[in-house]
């Protein structure tokens, strides 16, 4: 069972974790995966046990490119977890992946949470964080067994408008 101490937390992936086991196995190989419904073919994240679109319980893992757009974010100034105090201020972002955007309804997308980090896995500067900016997955190796998907800014121009909190 992969487990690691990270910033004061004991992260663990139990052997029977049918939702996240395969996700973190892939992350260890620096691959980002989501679940693909074996019946309707739609991708889903988080990797729940059944399909939110057709209720099928049959699925396979599907690798995605890991490129996406910042859908929303926050800048955490006051860490709740003591292990994050030396990480503040840090951005938490919601990434919308490029795959299956606007499918099956215009509002749908594959969205996940991460920190926006720099080359050293330190928090990206607040001035560089904005909704609409392009990002790419990177993997932070916390131990030989457990890696954490994170995101970095890319050089790609944003597809649409960019918005930053004015405060």
């Amino acid at each position, binding site marked *: 069972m992969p*487990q690691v101490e*990270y*910033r*004061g*937390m*004991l*992260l*663990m*992936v*139990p052997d029977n*974790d049918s*939702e*996240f086991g395969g996700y*973190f196995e892939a992350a260890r190989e620096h691959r980002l995966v989501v679940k693909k419904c074996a019946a309707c073919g739609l991708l889903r*994240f*988080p990797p*729940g046990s059944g399909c*939110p679109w057709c209720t099928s319980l049959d699925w396979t893992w599907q690798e995605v490119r890991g490129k996406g757009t910042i*859908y*929303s*974010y*926050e*800048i*955490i*100034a*006051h*860490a*709740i*977890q*003591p292990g*994050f105090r030396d*990480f503040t*201020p*840090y951005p*938490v*972002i*919601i990434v919308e992946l490029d795959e299956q955007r606007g499918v099956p309804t215009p*509002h*749908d*997308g594959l*969205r*996940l*949470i*991460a*920190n926006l980090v720099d080359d050293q896995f330190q928090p990206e500067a*607040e001035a560089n964080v904005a*909704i609409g900016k392009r990002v790419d997955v990177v993997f932070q190796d916390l131990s030989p067994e457990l890696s*954490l998907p994170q995101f970095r800014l890319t050089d790609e121009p944003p597809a649409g408008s960019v*918005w930053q*909190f004015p*405060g």
Partner: protein
Amino acid sequence: MGRLTDKYCIVGVGETSYSKNSGKTTRAMGAAAICNAMRDAGLGADQVNGVLSYHGGDSTAGPEIAADLGIRPDFYMDCSGGGSSTEALVGLAIGAIEVGMCETVAIFRSMNGYSEVRIGGTGRRAAAPVAGSQLLSRPYGMVSAGQNFAPVFMRHMMEYGTSSAQVAAVKVAHSKHASNNPKAFYRKRYTVDDVLNSRWICKPLHLLDCCVETDNATALIVTSAERAADLRQRPVYVMGVVGRVTKKRGDTFYNDAPITDVAGKYAAERVFGMAGVGPEDVHVTGSYDAFTFTTLLQLEDYGFCRKGEGGDYVSNGIIELGGKRPNNTSGGHLCEGYTHGMSMVIENVRQLRGQADDSCPGWQDGIHTHGYAEGGCRQVREAEISMNLGWANPVTGSALILRR
């Protein structure tokens, strides 16, 4: 409900004081809150035979508290849940009475919400291993309610142009109300600049956008209109109730988009339909103000203003005492103290009775000055219909419409 509208009542309310160091167990506080509600209603222990509670592993079970009060339950449930549980349990209490499981139900929430178990994972919650769906957020330093909800409001600011100053007006209004509530933990009046100049917690939230965690217990008592007729207080009738209405993809706050739509969007039609009234008929609202912006999002999605216009609605005086539809006249979670929602239902019951416990000498007899200056009255004139907007998180909520 429809056919059950006006057939059930809230007949007693009670609470303990709000503090950051109760020095008591949740058992002692829970018993005190129910005892206060029973005295308020004029009910003896042999007249209460149902007990419902909600908790997050931080309370004492109903049978222990019932034992301390001499109550022998014919029905009890301790439900796992936080915000928006109060309204849901009022509905469940009505159901239990309607099917004949019991006649009169005490609902309580008891929490040492500051001194023992704070929301968000400090204290004993912090020591638990992180596994399962928690791996999607906690390793990224996203754990507290504010951290979990803030990206929803950030997106609202982008989509609708809502400003920090507009949402700060919620704190301004609720602090005015709290200044006329002797029970409130914070009775100081705040300005928009006070909010904007307070330190950042997680942008876009300032310290004063966040509620005040406290130790407290709260309780209310539900029974049938027939039984209510003989009791001490003027009954407050349940017109409509919905419990823990949830958006699709309720496993996260960011998959059922637009994420700026909250559960109230789905709850509104059902609860107003039951009650046979609309937002324009409501005289006083009680929104779940864990944060300033949760009030704004709920008022929009229940239709008190159009979607995206919440910033204007909360900052133009409507929600203040003396305004068209005051919100959280006790000061709410932002100022009176954080209770996981029960206190705003208690406040609305008092408003509908005409018994807001303010600084007016005759408040117990319903005599109020309606002068809302600091340290004065907080009774809304001719409050006949109230509505509570319960919030668990952006995707789950409850609602309760009451009348006098």
